[in-house]
Structure formats: structure tokens, C-alpha cells
């Protein structure tokens, strides 16, 4: 073929809506979240896990059957500032993705922190949850965390 073929461009969208079964532990977590409660569970060695897990991530042993409420406040243990949020990000303006260790928990939960500016972010900062007006039993019921020292 001596002539150069044209260049064609078209959108190509691949989308699947998976429905994922939660199992006994995360079912409790998301049901409580819908009631604006943060639940954790314990390993047999007494470590408090939030989000709760079916097994101790260190030993693989089943976790204890009871749940404890943690938070609502917590501490940022690490974070990354998102300068330009994308369509699927939890907030439309700049925010931090952060690991938040809720009061009473030994592990941290990944969520967004709406701090307004990167300058307000620091490891060790205190945050509190901001709940959505309507909850549906999903992680977005907790819209984000925000700094405890309100502006």
C-alpha cells in the first residue's frame, strides 16, 4: 500500500458493574456505616482492626466474633495530596487521600480528607468524619474526613 492510511479515533468504553457479596464481617461494617457508626473487630491477640477483617492479616487466624465501635475522630497516619481530582475521585476539589487511624483502632482506614489546602495537612493531624445527608450502606456514606480544628 503506497498511500498513507487515514488515522481514525473513537471512544471505546469498557464498563462492568460488579455486585460483590460482603460476607459476615464487612456486612456488619457497611450496615453500621449506614447508621453513621464506625465498627471495628478484634484479632485473638487483641488488635483492633478498622476496617474489620475476617482474618488476622498477620496470622491468618479468624478474628473474634464481636464488634466494637471506634472513632468517630481519628489521626492521619499518612497522606497524599491530590492536586487535580479526576471524575471518579470522592471530592471535586483538591483533597488528600489519607490513612486514618480511628480512635480505639490499631489499623487505619483509607479515605479522603477535605483540608482545603495542602498546607493544612500533616501526619498526626486530628480528623473527624463528615457524613452524607443520605446513607446507603457504602463507603461514600462517609463523604470524607475533615480537620477537627475547624476553620
Amino acid at each position: 500500500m503506497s498511500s498513507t492510511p487515514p488515522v481514525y479515533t473513537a471512544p471505546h468504553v469498557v464498563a462492568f458493574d460488579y455486585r460483590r457479596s460482603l460476607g459476615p464481617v464487612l456486612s456488619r461494617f457497611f450496615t453500621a456505616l449506614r447508621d453513621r457508626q464506625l465498627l471495628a473487630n478484634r484479632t485473638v491477640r487483641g488488635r483492633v482492626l478498622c476496617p474489620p477483617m475476617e482474618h488476622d492479616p498477620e496470622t491468618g487466624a479468624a478474628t473474634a466474633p464481636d464488634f466494637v465501635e471506634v472513632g468517630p475522630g481519628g489521626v492521619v497516619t499518612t497522606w497524599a495530596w491530590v492536586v487535580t481530582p479526576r471524575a471518579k475521585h470522592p471530592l471535586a476539589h483538591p483533597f488528600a487521600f489519607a490513612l486514618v487511624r480511628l480512635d480505639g483502632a490499631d489499623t487505619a482506614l483509607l479515605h479522603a480528607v477535605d483540608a482545603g489546602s495542602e498546607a493544612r495537612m500533616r501526619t498526626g493531624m486530628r480528623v473527624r468524619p463528615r457524613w452524607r445527608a443520605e446513607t446507603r450502606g457504602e463507603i461514600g456514606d462517609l463523604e470524607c474526613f475533615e480537620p477537627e480544628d475547624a476553620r
Partner: protein
Amino acid sequence: MSDARGPVKSLVTPTRLEYAYTATGAHAEFLKAISEGRLIGQRCPECRKVYCPPSGACPRCGIATEETVPVADRGTITTFCIVRVPSDVIELKLPYCTANIVLDGSDIPFIALLQECEAADVRIGMRVEAVWRPRAEWGPTFENIRWFRPTGEPDVPVEKLGAWF
């Protein structure tokens, strides 16, 4: 449970990937041809197999394919699948059939929709032809071919299909 909705037992976790697909080289040449109502393939200079749609390389020999050859818009079913499960994105009447079709002049099958026949009547070796949309609707897309339908010609014996597997 304080909430009348009952416990939360599952979550929808959507996956969505938005690509801007750009066709160049052999793909673009194929799309240009189909926008004119023609099908083309490319022949491997080593094994002499013809690939349609062409990718610009022979998957068997791993070398570039440069010779463009015309391919017919009729061919033979090598395998097929009867679909009985409804889907939100498919408007066809169930059950329907998708088939791997090797076009006359090509050596590799590709998947296409089969219509204008009962799914139960579809056979390996069945001869089929493309049903094109009206010329005014053609564009650089495989959707110019609405689907394939049986031609009524005698079946190709299964032993002659072996070369394509």
C-alpha cells in the same frame, strides 16, 4: 437492626475504563476499506496465511505483514455459541448465535453475530454471508455489517475446517 432496609449484604463496585482508541496502520487501512464496502486482509510473507481483520503482523511468525489482499464478505462458520442469557446492553431476541467465521480468502476466523436463522439450526461448516447496512449509513466501522446470515450453500466438511484451528 435499627434500619428497616435490613443488613447491607453486597456492594456494587463499578469498573469503567474509557479509552480513546486510535486506529493506525493495518487497522486504519481495514477501516478505510470497510467504509467503502470492501473487506481486506494481509498476507504473511513467510507462512502465506491471510489475516482479516489485519493487525499488521503475523501472530504465528511474528513478522510484519505488508501485502494487502481482498477478502470476500462470505465465509464459513468454524465454531459458534448460542446465547441464552439476557443482558441489558443486548436488544436481540433470545436465543441468538455468535459465530467464528473464516471469510473466503482469509485464514483466521473472527467473531460475528449471526441472524436470520434459528440458533438451533447453526452448524460448524455452515456457509454465511454479510448483511450490510444501507450504504448511506457506512462509516469506518465494522458495524457497517449488520450481521451474517446463512447463504444456503452446502456445508464445508468439518475435516476441511481443521486447517483453521
